[in-house]
């Protein structure tokens, strides 16, 4: 029932499709492989047949990486990527979902298993024989960029930190990447927020459900995103803003959960969605009001900046660029290639790894040509892909603000 209702809402947008092909020019995947016929073909065009139960071979929608660039490029407001996500879900319901997809869609399970045994787990993930085995047994490509467990959890640090007692209350949504792999990014986000007068609260939270959604596990994804909404809503209710650094996860809460999972009418999610900010979006907004602290010390560095697709899906432009421009000494070079290819978990899969690498090739070439030593990028899976493909470090933009504040 819920499926039918929300699908109708999405599908009504496809009547606005005039077949102009602008989405086709934006798609990073159909550009490099014939296995995905392109957003217009797989989306608005095929949807008309699906509606009549006449769809043909639907296996190609699984090759959409869910980046969402088609929806953003569409001048008519057609929800192309969202329709494709729904079609993927329908196909997967019929064909079943592999153990691999069920596993990589659960970062909290993987994170909890790996963290206590991080040195062993990390060694395994780097070891060729183990990766070959994982490729054969699970279908995770042997060269795919898997993150290293930090061996500690961000929440452990958060529980023991000395939080300032004053300031404007703000809630930090850190996401799984920060929790298990990059707790230092979370620490820097908190430090930058506190430096700007916020009192940061870090309530209990779990995965937003995005990887489940992108792997077609809609029921599980709904449970996760609603559980997250329930735990954040009490804070949002008194007008408190929620801020996150993982742009894919914040987008899931802002929009994708509601649109793709059909949760438009959940009041908690609606509230949390409205109060959710990307950290760079929030800091630029502060700057717009003249409230951002500008006591930046010089950072002598040449940085390339790539805005991830799902950061672009916030439809807020590139606030990180404007923030980094405030740091003296920092020479920031904007890259305009569309996508790194990874699509969250897409590029980890044996059959999609090379497609993801090819989709990101323009970006990797631009990194090479930029002369930058380091790549700033808002989303963690994109950073891991960029590091893997370019052999250059890739960091969240907040790193440079943290460094410039000398925190």
């Amino acid at each position, binding site marked *: 029932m819920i499926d039918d209702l929300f699908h109708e809402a999405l599908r009504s947008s496809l009547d606005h499709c005039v077949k102009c092909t*602008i989405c086709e*020019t934006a798609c990073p995947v159909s*550009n490099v492989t*014939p296995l995905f016929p392109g957003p217009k073909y797989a989306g608005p065009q095929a949807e008309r047949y699906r509606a009549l139960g006449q769809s043909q071979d639907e296996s190609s929608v699984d090759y959409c990486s869910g980046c969402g660039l088609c929806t953003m490029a*569409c*001048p008519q407001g057609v929800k192309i990527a969202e329709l494709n996500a729904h079609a993927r879900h329908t196909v997967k319901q019929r064909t079943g979902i592999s153990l691999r997809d069920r596993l990589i869609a659960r970062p909290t399970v993987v994170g909890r298993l790996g963290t206590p045994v991080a040195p062993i787990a990390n060694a395994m993930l780097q070891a060729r024989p183990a990766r070959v085995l994982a490729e054969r047994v699970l279908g995770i490509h042997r060269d795919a960029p898997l993150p290293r467990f930090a061996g500690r959890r961000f929440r452990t640090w958060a529980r023991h930190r000395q939080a300032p007692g004053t300031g404007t209350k703000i809630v930090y949504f850190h996401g799984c990447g920060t929790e298990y792999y990059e707790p230092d990014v979370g620490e820097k986000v908190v430090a930058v927020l506190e430096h700007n007068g916020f009192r940061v609260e870090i309530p209990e939270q779990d995965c937003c459900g995005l990887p489940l959604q992108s792997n077609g596990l809609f029921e599980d994804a709904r449970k996760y995103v609603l559980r997250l909404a329930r735990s954040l809503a009490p804070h949002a209710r008194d007008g408190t803003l929620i801020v996150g650094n993982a742009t894919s996860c914040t987008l899931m809460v802002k929009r994708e959960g509601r649109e793709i999972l059909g949760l438009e009418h959940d009041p908690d999610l609606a509230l949390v969605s409205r109060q959710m900010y990307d950290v760079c979006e929030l800091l630029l907004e502060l700057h717009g009001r003249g409230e951002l602290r500008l006591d930046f010390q010089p950072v002598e560095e040449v940085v390339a900046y790539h805005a991830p697709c799902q950061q672009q899906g916030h*439809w807020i432009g590139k606030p990180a660029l404007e923030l980094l421009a405030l740091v003296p000494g920092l020479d920031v070079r904007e890259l305009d290639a569309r996508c790194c290819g990874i699509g969250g978990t897409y590029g980890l899969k044996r059959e999609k790894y090379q497609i993801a690498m090819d989709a990101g090739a323009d970006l990797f070439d631009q990194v090479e040509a930029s002369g930058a030593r380091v790549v700033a990028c808002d989303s963690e899976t994109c950073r891991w892909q960029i590091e893997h493909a370019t052999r250059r470090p890739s960091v969240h933009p907040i790193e440079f603000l943290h460094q410039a504040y000398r925190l």
Partner: protein
Amino acid sequence: MSASLRYDAVVVGAGVAGLTAATRLAESGARVCVLAKGVGSTHLAPGTVDVLGYTPDRVEHPAAALPEFIAAHSDHPYALIGTDAIAPALQWFAARIERGPRPGYRYTGDLDRNHLLPTAVGAIRPSALVPETMAAGDARSTAPVCVVGLRVLRDFHATLCAGNIRRAGIDARAVEVEIDVGRVEANAVGLARRFDDESFRAAFVARLALLLRPGERVALPAILGLRDPHGAWSDVQRRLGRDVFEIPTLPPSAPGMRVYNALLAALRAAGGRLVLGAEVTDVEREGDRVTAVRAATSGHDTIYRAGWIVLATGGFGSGAIELGSDWAASEMILGLPLQGMPMPGEARFAADYFAHQPMAAVGVAVDSSLRARETDNVYVAGAALPGAVPWREGSGEGIALATGHFAAQAVLEREGATATA
């Protein structure tokens, strides 16, 4: 709470008109943000700048034809801004392309003489300013033409195109080249990306060279590169040892995307900002001034405060102006007063699709500085303006470019007057 950001000028729309106005403002030192619901019509357009092609007879010399055209169409955008405003806009545009991210790629032409170039179906179209990669297609040349189709590009019919070029009095024939691109079907932009690769070009030319006759010009669909069109075109021309020209394709359009890429690069270089996906839904006003626009971004709205607003949202085609079932037309963002509506009882539409459609000339009412009526600081550019029927006049890009350029000038003059005061 809504996020709120402050700019000197907010431009709504990322087509040629919007990007031109925004870039020009940014180049003059203004902090500019372009908000757009999606990519504009550049990706669909042929990439030529057609200023005036038909009045209704075919125009060979736009500069000579414009005064009479303006005299006969006093409500046309060109009549508002004056002919003198058009040439500087063309020069500005050509310079941005030349300076742009595609080394060597440039435009050729001016208002003195239209190029007469074949379209995808081989009809002859008059354009004032065209990419260098198209110029050799001019119908004034008597050199025979070989139109080259590719089997994978199903939207380009070389035989049809050549047949119509023949009807225009030029000896033309069609050939088809088969080349493996790893898929059964490709669009023009997909192929253009392949032509950025030198080894692909070499393989293509090797097949094509066998099919050509001495003295023929080579017409290719516009697929000669996205990243390096000048390099791709020069290379193919050199390898074939003869003139090669591109014919604009059905969408998506590689030359149109080159225009978008060049203008966006110029905007960025000048410090301007583009926000895609942000549909402007509402505005805030103080008296007759619009002080901010509200954009529907993911999750919450974002307020963009600005001293100046440039509305470059397009007309009926883009949904910027809508016609209701009650026959009332509305400008969808600000509800601005419109001009050119047929009076009650008058014909609104004509039965012949390509005939003069009275309703199509409806647009936002502006004064001679392109300022929207009943506002102090909202300027209008491009297809949102009234009085034009671009597809009959062959004037769409010319209007977009010249009015975008002019609207920025109008803002800068007001800004200058304010600063002096």
